[in-house]
């Protein structure tokens, strides 16, 4: 497919060639701007332009650094501590302050808080990433089919979306998690995704509805492309921007939701080291040593902060309306 000369944002039709500038017959100054455009260089695509925009922001690098750090910690916690978070505990050390080799001190059970904070990253990241992936697949599929095929598909899928939208996420998660016997990262992510896909479906449906009326879609049909192929090759890639923006922020909110469920005691079981569970146990000793809660809460906040900041940067980069000229 030839590169789009005038990249448009999803949601807005591309300007027609020759209509971007109106130059008065005697306005020589106006032509200067046209001449200044480099014509030897290949036109930049929407995505490359956005990437350039993103790279220039300091916030992008801060967010990226936080996310990479959290991902590395989640994948290889052993690199950061040699202390085991659950087995190297001694009740005689309960609530003891920081000592050499144990920079954060010890929790109620006498476990090393630093090790528990490091190992807690995995549960949060795993649930957040899995739930977001499921939400993207489910929400995009339902929203795209509803928006692209329209008619009865749209009516039925939109009503189903409304039904799931009407049930608050935390409420549904509490009801389902309380009846789930085998609670793992996967089941928590699945439950969050089952009631969290509606926003992406609505966003996708909206953008697909406007993208499918573009000329390149008509052109593809005229060339004899099948409806399914057009949806996958032309409509969906051009609807991706708002989905990516929402997904980045959603990852942060899913991590908070997991922590909330673990805090309520119906998320991950106590055998899994998680920030939500650790905050819940730290709460028992909050009047004696409140600083214990600081570490798992800090890890959680930092992770969510990274993803929300990234979502902000991505939104600014992918939305030309918000770009500062």
């Amino acid at each position, binding site marked *: 497919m030839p590169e789009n000369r005038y990249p448009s944002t999803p949601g807005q039709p591309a300007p027609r060639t020759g209509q971007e500038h109106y130059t008065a017959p005697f306005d020589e100054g106006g032509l200067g701007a046209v001449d200044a455009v480099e014509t030897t260089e290949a036109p930049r695509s929407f995505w490359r332009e956005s990437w350039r925009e993103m790279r220039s922001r300091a916030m992008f690098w801060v967010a990226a650094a936080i996310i990479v750090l959290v991902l590395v910690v989640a994948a290889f916690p052993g690199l950061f501590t040699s202390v085991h978070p659950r087995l190297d505990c001694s009740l005689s050390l309960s609530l003891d302050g920081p000592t050499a080799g144990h920079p954060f001190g010890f929790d109620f059970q006498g476990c090393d808080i630093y090790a528990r904070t490091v190992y807690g990253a995995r549960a949060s990241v795993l649930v957040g990433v899995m739930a977001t992936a499921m939400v993207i697949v489910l929400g995009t599929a339902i929203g795209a089919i509803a928006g692209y095929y329209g008619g009865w598909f749209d009516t039925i899928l939109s*009503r*189903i979306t*409304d*039904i*799931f939208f*009407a*049930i*608050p*996420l*935390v*409420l*549904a998660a*509490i*009801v*389902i998690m*309380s*009846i789930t*016997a085998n609670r793992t990262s996967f089941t928590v992510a699945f439950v969050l995704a089952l009631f969290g896909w509606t926003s992406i479906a609505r966003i996708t449906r909206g953008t697909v509805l406007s993208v499918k009326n573009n000329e390149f879609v008509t052109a593809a049909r005229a060339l004899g492309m099948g409806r399914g192929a057009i949806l996958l090759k032309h409509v969906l890639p051009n609807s991706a921007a708002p989905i990516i923006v929402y997904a980045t922020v959603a990852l*942060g909110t899913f991590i*908070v939701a997991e*922590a*909330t469920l673990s*805090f*309520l005691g119906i998320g991950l079981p106590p055998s899994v080291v998680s920030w*939500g569970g650790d*905050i819940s146990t730290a*709460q028992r000793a*909050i*009047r004696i040593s*409140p600083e214990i*809660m600081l570490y798992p*809460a800090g890890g*959680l*906040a*930092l992770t*969510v*902060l990274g993803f*929300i*900041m990234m979502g*902000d940067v991505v939104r600014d980069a992918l939305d030309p*309306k*918000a770009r500062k000229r």
Partner: protein
Amino acid sequence: MLWYLGRRLLQVIPVFLGATLLLYALVFLRPGDPVNALGGERGLPEAVQDEIRARYNLDQPFLVQYLLFLRGVFTLDFGVDFRGREILDVMAGAFPVTFQLALMALAIEAIFGVGFGLVAGMRKGGWFDGSVLVMSLFVIAVPTFVIGFVAQLGLGVRLGWFPVTAGRDPDFYSLLMPAIVLGAVSFAYVLRLTRTSVAENLSADYVRTARAKGLQRSQVTGRHVLRNSLIPVVTFLGADLGNLMAGAIVTEGIFNINGVGGTLYDAIVRGENVTVVSLTTVLVLVYIAANLLVDLLYAALDPRIRYA
């Protein structure tokens, strides 16, 4: 307008039926037998179990049970729970407090979120905008329950400015801190939404026209910029009321408030299925009603929307 209202009400029916059926199925098709569990370890004789099942319609097929429940919803007769209490009484004891708490949180996030967001959006890029934006990021990133514990310990226990817990029959003052905590995250969202919306509308043509025709600054801001910027904010607030009432379960736990959250959790643990679905049905109804109200508010805010 009336025609629109009627069509909108018709749309609500499948959503209400679908959502309640889904919740009913989730609660009643779960493994385990609450009737058998009533007897503890020894169990109850078969005849007693059958008698209890018949009394609570548990011997009927699933769909019949659901329809009987639905009839109860419309006749306001939810039945009794296993301990013999009227479920309507249980709900009447739980909902007023939670509703008050959620409304207070909604008011706080609306007033402060829109106020801060308006000032930040008017001077986008300034020092106030920058600091408010960073603050909102932190409020979103720190989970509600951590904010709750820190507020309880700091403002309640250490400084003594607020009551530490609300307890039975709380007054406005003792619900204030829980409401601030409950509304904190949404406050940050409202702030950011207002800020973006205001900054976008400031460069709109109609604002330039309003300025050009010599309107005063305050009138341009209040009548044109703010009113148009409120549309996405109102949408968010409408959907948020339901989330606040359901999400209050955490805040209510921290501040010891006897509201919907505690009652729901208790009912789930005890296997009081009818109480669980009754409470959740009312929550879904609140959610639907709030969204309906928002749709009608659009007409008042956006001059382009007319329900002819």
